[in-house]
């Protein structure tokens, strides 16, 4: 039974940063991930990372932009922490070896990004997430004597002690199929978002909401689960992401008539309004017949100088070429809003602590909430690093303070029984797991997307509940132990359905339009009744809803225009 002081689940940016921060405190750390760490989805963050580090810029300005971007649902104390600590984090990464873009003086250079009042996005071409994550992985290799890596281990449940504190995890070693109990004095969930609940999505196949579901199942509170970001520029059908950096570099959005339609929706910021605003504008153009017949509008990057495109948007050139057959330096590319980011998640404080003692969460899995109703571009990497680091440090402090406890009896056996039951289902006893996933994804994309209404969300919720029942008898083909991806898929489906149910319930509950939640039946923001978080906890018949206040420090809600 492997034992560590701090155990981190998930090895993207938040997880790796948490592990390194915990190790710095001299405690023993294990980091466990269902894929090799460098396969984690933080790779996909293309555009950059925000920090007010330029002379003349201020963390207050960054914080205000974030508050406004969140449609005033973000907790301002948390946003202040994130923006204040951002510059130091960027410098830390630079010192570790991240190859950030330089200006002509050889100092860190920035690019413009959506919803920001200053150019404060630091970047490595358009592979910023990848560049940072690979550098953190270098550090994990460097510190391999203080951080044990468990690569390709899948978590099936959190382990709890008799007092209801989290004291470990139950995992499956993917390589040999063995089930093992890991114990720890603190567990940090850093498992990313739940994009796979929607189809198409920009998210990787691994983004199945594992952390959110595992925490929910042991009674942790979730928050802002209705807030799902649709990114304005994704490839139709396939869901691939075209970085906001393209618009940051000056690219235009055009409808089928060639009009730069953002003039009508955000006359000041144009293409660089916040993502919810741009996605709604595009969807409106498409719905009102001004898009292309394939349900898209165009992103015109040809207005950016070719040399600059090759230097700063290298990845997008490849995406256009390989996945759309378009040379973006010569012609516009067809795009549409697509599922992208989970603003909500496990409710935490600014040190990553959840409602469950011993359980922490950081990154997209968590909801601090710094993004509120809408995340600004280039704030997600920042969120993962700042709150990854803070969780790691606080978890280490807890580990030094407490005596370890033992998981309640039967934790391992219960999980093993669950897995055996899935394996035992006979072919033809129910639907295929893949069929249920497909129905879930298309339903959510149709009903719980950019524009929502009560009837649609209700319909989605009913579908999700039916699929939950069907999942109980869904069968798989692979009966083996080594790399049985079928078993993992069945468990992931369960995670996805829990996520979907919570999102539907929260979207149904919030009877107003704020940030990413746009209700056509309640098209206005309603601060009097809805300037509050929707919290959710697992009950006997699905999620139980409660509310919590939004923390205000210095910014009163205003009308939001760009």
């Amino acid at each position, binding site marked *: 039974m492997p034992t560590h002081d701090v155990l981190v689940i998930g090895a993207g940016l938040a997880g790796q940063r948490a592990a390194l921060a915990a190790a710095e405190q001299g405690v023993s750390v294990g980091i466990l991930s269902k894929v090799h760490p460098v396969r984690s989805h933080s790779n996909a963050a293309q555009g950059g990372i925000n920090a007010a580090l330029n002379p003349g810029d201020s963390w207050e300005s960054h914080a205000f932009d974030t508050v406004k971007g969140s449609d005033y649902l973000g907790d301002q104390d948390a946003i202040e922490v994130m923006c204040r600590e951002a510059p130091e984090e960027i410098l830390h990464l630079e010192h570790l070896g991240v190859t950030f873009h330089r200006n002509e003086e050889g100092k860190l250079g920035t690019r413009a990004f959506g919803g920001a009042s200053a150019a404060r996005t630091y970047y490595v071409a358009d592979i910023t997430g990848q560049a940072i994550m690979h550098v953190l992985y270098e550090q994990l290799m460097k510190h391999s004597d203080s951080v044990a890596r468990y690569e390709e281990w899948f978590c099936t449940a959190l382990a709890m002690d008799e007092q209801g504190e989290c004291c470990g995890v139950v995992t499956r070693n993917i390589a040999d199929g063995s089930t093992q109990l890991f114990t720890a004095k603190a567990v940090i969930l850093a498992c990313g978002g739940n994009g796979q609940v929607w189809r198409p999505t920009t998210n990787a*196949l691994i983004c199945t909401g594992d952390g959110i579901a595992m925490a929910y199942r042991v009674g942790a509170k979730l928050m802002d689960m209705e807030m799902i970001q649709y990114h304005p520029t994704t490839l139709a059908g396939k869901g691939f992401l075209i970085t906001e950096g393209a618009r940051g570099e000056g690219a235009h959005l055009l409808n089928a008539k060639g009009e730069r339609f953002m003039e009508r929706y955000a006359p000041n910021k144009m293409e660089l309004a916040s993502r919810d605003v741009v996605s709604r504008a595009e969807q409106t153009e498409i719905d009102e017949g001004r898009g292309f017949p394939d349900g898209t509008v165009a992103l015109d990057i040809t207005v950016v100088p070719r040399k600059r495109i090759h230097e700063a948007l290298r990845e997008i050139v490849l995406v256009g070429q390989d996945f759309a057959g378009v040379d973006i330096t010569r012609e516009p590319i067809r795009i549409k809003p697509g599922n992208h980011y989970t603003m909500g998640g496990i409710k935490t404080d600014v040190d990553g602590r959840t409602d469950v003692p011993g359980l922490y969460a950081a990154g997209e899995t968590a909801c601090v909430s710094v993004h509120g109703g809408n995340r600004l571009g280039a704030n997600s990497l920042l969120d993962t690093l700042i709150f990854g680091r803070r969780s790691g440090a606080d978890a280490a402090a807890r580990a030094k303070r407490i005596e370890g406890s033992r998981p309640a009896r039967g934790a391992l056996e219960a999980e093993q029984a669950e897995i055996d039951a899935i394996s035992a289902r006979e072919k033809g006893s129910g639907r295929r797991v893949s069929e249920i996933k497909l129905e879930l994804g298309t339903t959510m994309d149709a009903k719980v997307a950019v524009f929502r209404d009560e009837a649609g969300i209700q319909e989605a919720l009913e579908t999700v509940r039916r699929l939950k029942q069907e999942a109980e008898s869904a069968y798989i083909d692979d009966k083996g132990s080594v*790399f049985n991806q079928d078993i993992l898929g069945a468990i992931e489906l369960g995670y996805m359905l829990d996520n979907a149910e919570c999102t539907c319930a929260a979207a149904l509950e919030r009877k107003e339009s704020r940030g990413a939640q746009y209700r056509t039946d309640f098209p206005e923001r309603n601060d009097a009744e809805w300037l509050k978080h929707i919290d959710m906890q697992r009950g006997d018949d699905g999620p139980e809803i409660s509310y919590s206040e939004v923390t205000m420090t210095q910014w009163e809600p205003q009308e939001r225009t760009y």
Partner: protein
Amino acid sequence: MAEYTLKVRRYQPESGEGAYWEEFKVELDPSLSVLDGILQAKDREDGSLAVRCSCRAAICGSCGMTINGQSGLGCKTQIGHAHEHANRRNGGGEPIVVEPMGNMPVIKDLITDMESTHWKKIRRVTPWLLPHGEAPEREYVVEPESMIDITQSMACIQCGACVSSCLSMEADPDFIGPAALAKAYRFVGDPRDGESVERLHDLAEDPHGIYDCTHCFNCIDACPKGVAPMDQIMRLRRKAGEEGIEDPNSGHDHEMAFVKIIEKKGTLDESLLLQESFAPGLKGKLKPSKRAIKEMLASIPTAIRGLRSGKMRSLPKLIPGVHPKLPDGAQDDVKAIYEHAEQHREEFNIYIKGEEDVEPEPDETATEETTA
């Protein structure tokens, strides 16, 4: 929509059987990927078909595999192209052949053991920054180009396609290999790293290091991210040469021999090439050094074998002074060109793309893709 046949090399470790071929019929748009095809087969027909994959967009590096004999990413290879490639030479009945990556043990179906091969080699090159002294209060101030330069290596997603295709590694499994050496260049070329010279010595003196590469270009073809690992290896070699590190293949001396002969003679007198490559003449003169004479005598058996087998046919060319003079003072013109290039520090190196703003023709790149 079109129908394709995927012929997959499968291996189920718990079956007790060896590897075998299985064909899957899939139906999808030609613009979708080979990985999409495999996932369709897995979703609809056989969930035990094992393949690592995640992003589907060539950024996570999970789905390295061999398609029609070519190493690459399943998600970045369009299935329509792969089908055309499989059927270049006949009517269209050939399946798309999918196999696990090469140079790595297979665990199950398309899943290979990257830990014991790829990652072990990555760790071999001390893959983290080793700055000297205290970090500055703000950022390190460095040439903007230096960051763009090493960003080419940073673009590596550790998919292993280059390792899979590496012929040198096939011959010498201990070769550090293209991915790890490209990673090494990322530090050697980083002005913030304080141990670039030590790294170069380490990589040059290892018999399985930078001089183990045979310039086959396979890794450049295989790399889905344009990292061009062989280019990075050549840069390491050049930097090692600049540091005066001895090259066991005499590669650096060989390169410099060309330069010096052109500089002195204005033409390539091949009779001088061998002696200069073995050991440069003293004080820049084109006179064989003691060591060069020794090495040349030692290579007589090779020369005789070459003559016997017909591989060496121009013996007279090896006799000093026989090399014909170029007409009309052309040799002086060549010397002048050399001098100009030297004074202006102009680089002529087929491996290294300089700062010039030359972009590959899009058609060229597209053709490369179809063969992937």
